[in-house]
């Protein structure tokens, strides 16, 4: 199971990469494997303000729809049009081309409350 050491994780399987005050969000390798083939991604509107825990995007496999929650509060500043056109990127490259949205975070320190890679590995094993 791929759990990169430079990311933080939400208990609901989103990952966060914080660069300055911009947090990139996607779903973990474990989550994409559980969901299996992603066939549709519903992206949030750019400019939308979200609190940590808000359902912000939807990822759908053949079998079910899953909400993707904002792991941290902020404003949606960018979404990934590539996953809308090719939802399978979420499966094939969950930490790279399969990212879902970017937030300008309110408080970068909030990221510290998310799971470390070690804690996330413990959760999913």
């Amino acid at each position, binding site marked *: 199971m791929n759990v990169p050491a430079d990311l933080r994780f939400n208990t609901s399987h989103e990952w966060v990469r914080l660069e300055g005050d911009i947090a990139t969000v996607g779903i973990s390798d474990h989550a994409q494997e559980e969901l*299996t*083939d992603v*066939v*549709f991604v*519903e992206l949030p509107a750019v400019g939308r303000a979200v609190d940590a825990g808000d359902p912000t995007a*939807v990822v*759908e*496999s*053949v*079998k079910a*729809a899953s909400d993707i929650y904002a792991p941290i509060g902020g404003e949606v500043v960018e979404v990934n049009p590539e996953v809308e056109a090719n939802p399978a990127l979420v499966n094939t490259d969950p930490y790279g081309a399969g990212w879902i949205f970017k937030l300008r975070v309110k408080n970068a320190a909030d990221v510290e409350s998310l799971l470390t890679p070690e804690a996330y590995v413990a959760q999913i094993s």
Partner: protein
Amino acid sequence: MSDLLKRSPLEAAHVELGAKLVPFAGWNMPVQYTAILDEHSAVRTKAGVFDISHMGQFLVSGEGALEWLNKMLANNVAKLGEGEGQYTFLLNGHGGVIDDLIIYRTGESDFFLVVNASMIDEDFAWFAKHQPESIELRNESELWAGMAIQGPESAALFAAVCPGETLPPRNGISKTSTGAIVCRTGYTGEDGFEFFSPAEEGGEWLKKFVAAGAKPCGLGCRDSLRLEMCYPLNGNDLAPDRTPIEAGLGFFVDLEKGDFIGRETLAKQKAEGPAVKLVALQYTDKGAPPRAHYAVLSPEGETLGELSSGVHSPSLGTGIGLAYLPAAWTKIGTEVRIDVRGRQFPAKVVKKPFYKPAPKA
């Protein structure tokens, strides 16, 4: 709850082969092995094997069995020669569907019925309630393990696993020298057969089919495969308050054969035209996968009905579904919208089925 789940005789083999098991119709069944799209594609291009041990098997025999079954079922049993099967319906007094099933004639007065998992007890009680003394009715559902081998390579797989045996012709039934019942039918649109072995031998047979090249498949792709063919799912697309005429399955109803339970309603609907019809809807563009119970709206936003089934079609790469709509909205090409959590995706009424498999051997 999990203690109440029924266990397939193939369960140990599924676990060994890496299936994900989930509760389905009271049974702990594999939903998928690897991924639904993978398994779907294997059945369309090569061959897959499904566990159908949860389905029920009834035996009916005795003098007058044919005449009695013809009163109980909507299709005409008299059209069956020995070794032949047909799709039919068990109806209530109002012509509503209790269950859809396949009946095979195995002898002059001997019949083998394959019914839906969730309906075994109810179907059996309905048959038993109307059973004349001269007719023997047996529920053998516990005795048989069932597998469906489906896909263009399924005949070759049969030859590999059962050397020297003959596959029955399409819609036919036969028995192998090892005592397995083989029915040349299926629920995917592809060539294939259903293989019923004594329950205790099931796991070994499953492993033999897999070893010969059948991809083990779960119920997830069984649903996408059957929906691409517009094959109805009882409980979703068929229900006690919907008739086969409304479901567009009048071909499997014989109004000329004499009286049968539910006939009056069906004859009236056929003569007058049903007020609602089950139509096939397909997205006109990409969209979130449609699913059962999502609302179907007119382009102006008026609610017309809801989806009885819906799925992202792996073969077409877009959303497909079935819905009962008022007759005025059922013409091919009619534009509608499907509501997915408040977002509306344009769809239109299309000809059934959604997908046409390659010609069968």
